[in-house]
């Protein structure tokens, strides 16, 4: 009994820590996005709250917290309330299986703790994909229940978009799963240890350097589809400001709006984490081992690993901003054509090629 409660306490502490980090990242992102966009467009971004505007996320949070919470007339109240939660919870819950650092174990109080992953379940990536599709329900329901044509259009677009692009996400990662032979993100990350040529984006075999199993096409498909799945520019049709006011959350205000907002940014962080874990070696440094390990500080090597993971994730997040600063929105038919006629064949071909190479040149 005590062991069970101890496990519960440890898990809760881990969850709290991860949630705190994710929320902090979301706050940083809201500021970083506006700053990066501003700089790329020769503006300054927010400058008023705090020095150089760094306290802007706090001001925004307070503002959203105290804003009036409006439910439009004729809205389906239950669904209207449920939708933001349905969008936010799946975005948050995916972080449970992300390995943030090396898979060391700690033995404390008679139980074994894995400090850098909340739960190492063997279907990790499947779990993330499953919950990501539930998140789409939040968007669709939010659009439908608002009793507004703009929201409905945004929700419908989102439904079509998520279906088309989730397929591509799923197919793009199949190659990686074939090579790693596992669905657990921890195992997948460990399979890429030992230098950047072992990352699946390069795809050398464990004993070689030649990129025989390269997943670069899958990586491109994954990144593009991930941008589409998180409803970011240039695939932000569900919330297209210039046509649909704000798309599915047109009618939302106050805390409910904040939930959708957090969900969007948490989703960005999540797909960045997944992309880093699947294709860029997760917490592995781009050279074998760790520098801290070589200088005799093996006990602190995790710092370097976590730093590499953070760096990779922020690289992806920067890519999101960069794309947003550069690209205009796609038209709807372009979006669909691109998804079904370009991305899908590439992903399928990648599976076939990877399967063949993995059969003739097996890993280890």
């Amino acid at each position: 009994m005590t062991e069970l409660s101890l496990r519960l306490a440890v898990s809760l502490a881990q969850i709290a820590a991860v949630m705190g980090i994710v929320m902090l990242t979301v706050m940083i992102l809201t500021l970083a996005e506006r700053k990066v966009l501003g700089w790329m467009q020769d503006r300054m971004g927010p400058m008023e709250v705090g020095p150089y505007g760094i306290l802007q996320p706090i001001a925004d949070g307070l503002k959203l917290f105290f804003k009036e919470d409006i439910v439009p007339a004729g809205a389906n109240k239950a669904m209207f309330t449920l939708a933001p939660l349905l969008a936010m919870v799946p975005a948050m819950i995916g972080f449970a299986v992300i390995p943030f650092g090396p898979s060391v174990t700690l033995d404390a109080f008679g139980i074994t703790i894995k400090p850098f992953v909340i739960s190492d379940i063997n279907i990790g990536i499947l779990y993330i994909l499953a919950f990501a599709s539930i998140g789409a329900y939040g968007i669709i329901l939010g659009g439908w229940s608002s009793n507004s044509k703009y929201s409905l259009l945004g929700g419908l677009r989102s439904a079509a978009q998520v279906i088309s692009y989730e397929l591509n996400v799923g197919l793009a990662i199949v190659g990686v799963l074939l090579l790693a032979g596992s669905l657990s993100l921890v195992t997948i990350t460990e399979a890429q240890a030992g230098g950047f040529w072992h990352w699946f984006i390069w795809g050398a075999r464990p004993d070689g350097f030649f990129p025989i199993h390269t997943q670069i096409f899958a990586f491109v498909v994954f990144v593009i589809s991930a941008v589409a799945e998180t409803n970011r520019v240039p695939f932000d049709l569900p919330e297209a400001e210039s046509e649909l006011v704000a798309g599915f959350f047109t009618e939302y205000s106050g805390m409910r709006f904040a939930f959708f907002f957090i969900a969007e940014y948490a989703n960005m962080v999540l797909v960045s984490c997944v992309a880093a874990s699947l294709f860029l070696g997760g917490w592995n440094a781009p050279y074998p081992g760790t520098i801290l390990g070589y200088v005799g500080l093996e006990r602190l090597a995790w710092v370097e690993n976590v730093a590499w993971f953070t760096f990779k994730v922020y690289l992806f997040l920067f890519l999101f901003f960069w794309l947003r600063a550069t690209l205009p929105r796609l038209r709807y038919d372009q979006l669909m054509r691109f998804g079904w006629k370009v991305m899908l064949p590439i992903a399928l071909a990648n599976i076939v090629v990877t399967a063949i190479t993995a059969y003739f040149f097996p890993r280890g």
Partner: protein
Amino acid sequence: MNLKTWIKTITFYELLAGMKATMSHLLHYRPITLQYPHEKRTLPDNYRGMLALLRYDDGTEKCVGCDLCEAACPSRVIRVVSAEVPGEPTKRYSKEYYMDMTRCLFCGMCVDACPVDALGMTREFEWAVYDKRQLHLNKQQLLAIGDRSFPVREEQLEFQHPNVAFFNVAFKHLPQKPS
């Protein structure tokens, strides 16, 4: 589709060119915006801001109550009540003079129309108010704006004071901008 366009398509060449452009702006970050309430840009000499009624050097109002500005105004901003100057039956002045600045579009037609250069455009532009009735200005207020924007009344003063933005001075006299 020839080979070159095909390669450009599959490598997202155009996208990468665009992303290079945005990245170069990020790396050579030089903002062109100003932190407005803290920094203000220098306004050009011919800036058309808030309207004002002007006085002669001796302090008498220039306006002769001719109503031409009211006729010239396309948005019916101005209302002039003309009257004889008491004791001087040959002279007229505007007994009352109202401007409804909520409608003004700062075209400067009234300034052009005035035969005695009694109207001027200042460089004031921060006229946001909470009650829009405050934008219904009477003669005293317009004269006060003129007094504060054109404090020195000398000949050709418009070229001496930075606030001066006469519209109806002869354009041929405008000095060349130092470049």
